[in-house]
């Protein structure tokens, strides 16, 4: 496929959260505010892009039977870098995301893309795959956190939107609300998908 198609693949057709159903832990945990959701999406994208670049560059030298441990080592290193970088220069974000930055290491999306794409494709294509998947992951996070923050606190990115008279639905920023909102979003996406597919014949 051409490069643009690789990119858009991650946005919808093989969207990591909606279609592949991976990387769900951060999706539910840090989408209580849009700021957190966006930051998590960007951090994950950074690790994904850097890992795919490095692994697609050195894939020739990695023997097949140690490929998974090698990928994991490289991913863990980029995550460590991200963690320290955020703690040093964005301490507020680092504190909000806390445990979930290191958990990027076990985000099946990252390891999965190395196995499925980076280890089998030239670097320029791997970059587009990573950007596409990263954006796909991020937009779902932002959507989910927009719903949760708006209904759960009446704000968007910290800005008061629904006014003081709005009684927030606290459940939205609690675990229960996260699960239910994601379930509804995936359900809606399924409906949209089915309509699109039936139209395409």
């Amino acid at each position, binding site marked *: 496929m051409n490069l643009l198609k690789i990119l858009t693949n991650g946005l919808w057709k093989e969207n990591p959260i909606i279609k592949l159903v991976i990387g769900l832990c951060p999706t539910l945990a840090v989408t209580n505010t849009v700021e957190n959701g966006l930051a998590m999406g960007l951090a994950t994208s950074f690790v994904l892009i850097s890992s795919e670049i490095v692994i697609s560059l050195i*894939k*020739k*030298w*990695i*023997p*097949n*039977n*140690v*490929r998974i*441990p*090698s990928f994991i*080592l*490289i991913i*863990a*290193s980029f995550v*460590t*870098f991200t963690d*320290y*970088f955020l*703690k*040093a*220069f964005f*301490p507020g974000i680092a504190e909000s995301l806390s445990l979930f930055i290191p958990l990027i290491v076990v985000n099946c999306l990252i390891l999965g893309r190395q196995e499925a794409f980076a*280890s*089998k494709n030239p670097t320029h294509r791997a970059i587009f795959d990573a950007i596409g998947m990263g954006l796909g992951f991020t937009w779902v996070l932002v959507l989910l956190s927009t719903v949760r923050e708006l209904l*759960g606190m009446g704000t968007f990115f910290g800005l008061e939107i629904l006014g003081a008279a709005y009684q*927030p639905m*606290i459940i939205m*920023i*609690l675990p229960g609300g996260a699960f239910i909102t994601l379930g509804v979003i995936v359900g809606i996406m399924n409906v949209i998908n089915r309509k699109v597919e039936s139209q395409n014949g």
Partner: protein
Amino acid sequence: MAQEDVSLSRLVITLTVIGVVSALILSVVYQWTTPYIEEHQAEAKEEAIFSVLEGAVEYEEVTKNGITFFEGYNESGNLVGVSYIAKGSGYQGTIEIMVGADPSNGEIMYISVLNHEETPGLGARITEEQFKNNFVNKPFGEYELVNREPSDPYEVETIAGATISTRSVKNIVSEAGLTIEENYGGGN
């Protein structure tokens, strides 16, 4: 990917090289970022201490009986008050509170909730000014929770729907005051 039939030494070498290179790079990243991280932590600590010890412009860390106290001094070098980080269990986890007190008159000065996992909108309201004001000029001692305006210096007004969280804070601060009294005297 590289061929299937590779020797054991090749496998070990690959992993070792990746491991060593990563460790070296991360070590550099660590050295580079640590000063910034420590600066943030020091700033946060200072802010917490000064927020509960009014008038303090510098502090000194003193350890007594295994507890790290922060003695606050004003510009003239006089002791303004003493604070330390008190912990206790709340509704949903540990609550950490920086409690500042003035041993010379046996009163709590102010509190700052540093960490908590209480329910947003309910227990989390322990960080609100209105609740924290319960503890301004509060004498050391055992406190009681009431759900009306306090008529007695030893009473603390609860937050509606957050009885457990407020009780936890009340207990933590009460014990903190007594701890400070034990180590620095109680004035009255």
